[in-house]
């Protein structure tokens, strides 16, 4: 089985977010970047499938050279080879175009992604890639098995789960508890040194969105305690101050 795992490079979840003075860009100074946590589920599950059934796992990232440390981490966890499409990932359409163009020529049986990238939380790339390739996309997957040419994916739906069988090739996006993400071991880190990491130039530059401005969510205000016997005051505050009723 030939598996492609797409990883995005995102700020560590504990990062304090700030913007450039014009509020048009996220300020990356001093920010620690990690592999998108959802993508770690996809990656680990891909490696498990490969270990059980044979095949290869390729990781792909659309990003500039500074994402290579995290690509090496993916190789250390157990991917066989990696591709970096050398471009700033300016929007979901652009990223999806790059992934689809690369995947077209490679005939992957399975394309795994995270359900969303925790930087911009678009929840879009998997659907776009599947559409561009003319194959199904199942999202968000919480369980994934492959038997011969058929994938069985359990996905979360409102109030329950849905189990879908689909013929390969397909795109699946992952979230917990698909598997337990692996911590790279020292031998993996050492062997990752010599695994191939191919840099490919992007094709096209079309984007569909443009960021107008960024703003931080309003500061959390303090908690007001209201004694149980003053329920009337609570109603007044909800109406006049919070303006929610």
């Amino acid at each position, binding site marked *: 089985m030939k598996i492609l795992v797409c990883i995005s490079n995102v700020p560590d979840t504990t990062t*304090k977010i700030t913007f450039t003075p014009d509020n048009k860009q996220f300020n990356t100074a*001093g920010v*620690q970047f990690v592999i998108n946590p959802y993508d770690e589920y996809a990656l680990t599950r891909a490696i498990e499938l490969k270990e059980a059934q044979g095949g290869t796992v390729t990781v792909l990232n659309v990003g500039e050279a500074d994402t*290579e*440390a995290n690509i*090496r*981490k993916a190789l*250390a966890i157990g991917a066989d080879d990696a591709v970096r499409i050398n471009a700033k990932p300016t929007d979901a359409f652009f990223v999806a175009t790059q992934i689809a163009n690369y995947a077209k020529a490679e005939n992957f049986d399975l394309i795994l992604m995270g359900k969303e990238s925790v930087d911009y939380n678009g929840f879009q790339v998997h659907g776009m890639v599947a559409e561009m390739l003319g194959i199904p996309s199942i999202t968000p997957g919480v369980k994934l098995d492959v038997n011969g040419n058929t994938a069985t994916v359990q996905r979360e739906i409102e109030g329950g789960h849905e189990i879908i069988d689909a013929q390969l090739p397909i795109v699946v996006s992952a979230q917990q508890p698909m598997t337990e993400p692996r*911590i*790279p*071991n*020292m*031998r*993996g*880190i*050492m062997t990752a*040194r010599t695994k191939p990491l191919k840099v490919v130039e992007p094709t096209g530059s079309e984007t569909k969105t443009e960021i107008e401005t960024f703003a931080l969510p309003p500061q959390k205000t303090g908690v007001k305690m209201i004694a149980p016997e003053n329920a009337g005051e609570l109603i007044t505050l909800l109406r006049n101050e919070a303006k929610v009723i």
Partner: protein
Amino acid sequence: MAYNPTEFLDYYNIDDLLTDEHKLIRKSIRDFVKKEISPNIEKWAQDAHFPSEIVKKFGDVGAFGPTIPEQYGGGGLDYISYGLIMQEIERGDSGMRSTASVQGSLVMYPIYAYGSEEQRNKYLPKLASGEWLGCFGLTEPDHGSNPGGMLTNIKDMGDHYLLNGAKMWISNSPECQIAVVWAKNEQGRIKGLIVERGMEGFTTPEIHNKWSLRASCTGELVFNNVKVPKENLLPNIDGLKGPLGCLDSARFGIAWGAIGAAIDCYESALKYSLERIQFDKPIAAFQLTQKKLAEMVTEITKAQIMVWRLGMLKNEGKATTQQISMAKRNSVDMALHIAREARQIHGGMGITGEYPIMRHMMNLESVITYEGTHDIHLLITGADVTGIQAFK
């Protein structure tokens, strides 16, 4: 706050001197410790329980013998990597780091450096994977700082050696499958042997009631007419420089490891002092608390630079025994001092198992004694700068 702390204390941007691979190694071991050690360590320490299942897990993550070449199951990594691994494990617990140090530096290293090809192939892969746990027997009841005086001995019986004697304070001994044992031959020369569990006359009684390294197991090695096959002698070493060579490697790891314990104490103290209110202010607002915290971060930073440089020297094969002594002594003394100050900052809470401080502090009381005591290392530096040995 101008200094924005991250997961890895780095006041002097020493990270700029590390490679991406070093940082990935550090982060991976940090994640391993947070998953496998930190959630349980307070209980293990309180119960004086050695979690034997950790041995296989250390093997899987690659904490055993990371500098040993891959063909023997090691990691093939450099000494900065080894140091960072020890630092992150000891940030969890010195006892856990001791388990890994002994296996890598005191058992795998001598078999790799002094052993035959058959011995390397027979033992190293099983030790690297954590299938076997090893221990290192040098110290005796009456010979600690002066190992050259040891009484444990071997007699050549033609087709085997007959081993007699006893070792004391041996980390991992109660759970070990093999022991690297140092003993004198009939000519009074120190030789290294690999003793295997199951050999008749070989027992490993546990030492109980330690107040320190409670999650690590410590015991004796008792040899009562043990027949050791001749092929279990380490062929390529003779004399006290054998065990001392191993200690160089382990002490190097301790010099890094103790910094991990210090960082854990400092971070806990910093957090506590910002949250604990007395006289209507966080205690971090008082000058005396700030003095403690500022000195802690200064001392940690100095030690970090020292061990980084030592690691580079070790990578080039240039680190001297005396340089390693200086770093081991400096790091452990610094860490113990920080643990004591951090304990004060935590007030009464500092003596409980709610915080890691008292555990680190008690652990470090062993670390400052084993692998050469604080004073013996000072005398090594003294001898080096004056040319006069003061310890004999």
